[in-house]
């Protein structure tokens, strides 16, 4: 049965979380959602009085990285907070029951309705979706049923967004994301590999405070987290603009914290709030730690952002090392050589077969015509 407890604040007080910490959490959420400070109180009120809506967490072709990321959150234990605000009735990685008893938890929640569903992992579609089954049912079947009847679906991670690395060339299982497997549902995508748990929490908090999902871009990603490029918020941007780049791993420029553009950083091509929110309670993020962004929140990033240490993807059919610039230079070289040869032949031809008209030309002093 779904559990509805009294407001979050009481739940937290029983766990020894002070009101001060609770308000700090609400402030952090307001900041993440890019809301002005006057919303902090509204968030606090909403969370203090909200009933616990049920949530089921589905895992398909996943690595459980998104669950791990989410459970790593702290201060004050975001995972605890959300798990106490929400009644998480089904999560294969952490739930107590197994087998038929686990499936029963899912079925009961679906029957009652009004639940949120979080999806992690891609859904295989090839060969009738046989490449991922749970309790004897294909992932595709489960997704269609559970997401179809949910109040809202949140996808976490690249896999549930568009298919993730299982979708990368050659995509042996026909892996796709929820938006392609179950069209027409209320869907919000939180891509990233893994996504930032702060963004997941903020989305849930938004839903509980305002009763609706935050505004999204054309790919269904909330704008508060995916509205600006990493490049435009990066702490190393001044180095980029100054032409100061790391040339090799571990060189002096790397030690000086220079821009990682030449090491293949995909910040200019990626929309995500990593530079501002960062990971592990704002400890750091890839560029801050000295490694370029790999563009993990973008569609098909495993193919479009790789090779990760070069700026452009390889061009299919031209070999592992070929990129647009090498191919382009080859084209120019080829054209130049071809026309150099043409020129030689033309010169020979002109000498051996002079054109008739050249022998009788005169010039008249006519002016403009036409």
């Amino acid at each position, binding site marked *: 049965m779904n559990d509805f407890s009294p407001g979050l604040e009481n739940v937290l007080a029983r766990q020894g979380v002070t009101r001060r910490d609770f308000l700090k959490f609400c402030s952090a959420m307001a900041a993440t959602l890019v809301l002005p400070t006057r919303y902090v109180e509204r968030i606090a009120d909403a969370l203090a009085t909200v009933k616990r809506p049920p949530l089921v967490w589905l895992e398909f072709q996943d690595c459980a990285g998104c669950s791990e990321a989410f459970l790593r959150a702290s201060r004050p234990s975001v995972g605890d907070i959300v798990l106490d605000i929400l009644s998480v009735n089904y999560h294969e990685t952490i739930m107590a029951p197994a087998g038929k008893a686990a499936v029963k938890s899912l079925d009961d929640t679906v029957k009652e309705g009004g639940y949120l569903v979080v999806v992690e992992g891609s859904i295989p579609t090839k060969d009738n979706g046989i490449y991922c089954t749970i309790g004897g049912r294909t992932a595709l079947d489960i997704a269609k049923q559970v997401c179809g009847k949910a109040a809202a679906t949140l996808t976490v991670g690249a896999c549930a967004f568009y298919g993730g690395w299982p979708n990368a060339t050659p995509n042996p299982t026909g892996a796709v994301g929820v938006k392609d497997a179950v069209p027409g549902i209320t869907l919000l995508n939180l891509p990233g590999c893994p996504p930032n748990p702060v963004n997941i929490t903020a989305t849930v908090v938004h839903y509980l405070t305002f009763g609706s999902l935050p505004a999204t871009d054309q790919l269904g990603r909330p704008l508060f987290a995916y509205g600006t490029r990493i490049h435009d918020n990066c702490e190393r941007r001044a180095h980029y603009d*100054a032409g100061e780049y790391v040339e090799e791993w571990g060189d002096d420029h790397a030690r000086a914290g220079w821009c990682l553009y030449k090491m293949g950083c995909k910040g200019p091509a990626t929309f995500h709030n990593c530079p501002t929110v960062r990971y592990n309670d704002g400890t750091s993020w890839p560029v801050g730690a000295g490694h370029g962004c790999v563009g993990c929140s973008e569609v098909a990033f495993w193919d479009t952002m790789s090779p990760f240490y070069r700026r452009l993807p390889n061009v299919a059919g031209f070999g592992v090392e070929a990129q647009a610039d090498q191919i*382009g230079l080859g084209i*120019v070289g080829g054209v130049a050589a071809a026309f150099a040869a043409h020129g030689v032949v033309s010169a020979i031809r002109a000498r051996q077969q002079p054109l008739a008209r050249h022998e009788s030309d*005169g010039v008249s002093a006519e002016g403009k015509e*036409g």
Partner: protein
Amino acid sequence: MLRRLYVWEIPVRLTHWVNVLSIVVLSFTGYYIGNPWILVSAREWYGPYFMGIVRFTHFVFAFIFVASLLLRTYWAFVGNAWASWRNLFPFLTAEGRKSLGDALKYYLFLRREPPEVVGHNALAGLTYAVIVFLYFLQTFTGFALLGEVNTEGIWYKLTGWVFVFVSNQVLRQIHHLIMWLLIAFAVHHVYAAMLIDNEEGNGLMSSIFSGFKFVHASLLKKVNNKG
């Protein structure tokens, strides 16, 4: 008899040279943006913002190039016969199709006589159609990439829809590749102009500066008969 004929009007020549300058600057700055190979000292006045200056220059010349394209497009409808958009699609007329075949045979050494026309020969015209398409694609991909800086702005509104279908990395790939195709075209273009100038003796190379070509009286009659 050769007659001096005014073929390339001022907007045609002006936009041609603005394009040359723009494409050269856009290529250098564009290449640097994709592969910043120049080492810059922060002590130079341009040092602390070198990539910024290069990008800014790229954007300025992108707009200059677009202005030139707009002017030339307008002129393609109001200019003289040799400035007309019709030159880009010679295959639309039977005469054009024949001219295309003749020009192709000439370049492949299968026919001695170069194509006898006042303006662009048919093959050149068709090539320009391809080039104009590349210009459009380059401009579009360029503004789409620029648009990502501000998803609320006008450029994203005009071009952002494309990102539902294709990654910005693919757009970048296309943007890089077209630069090289245009450079390859420039090599061919200069070569072909020099070749035809030599073969036809009509002052072709000078005409892109002065506007005047020297054409045979017989060809002139054809032009005048067309009115």
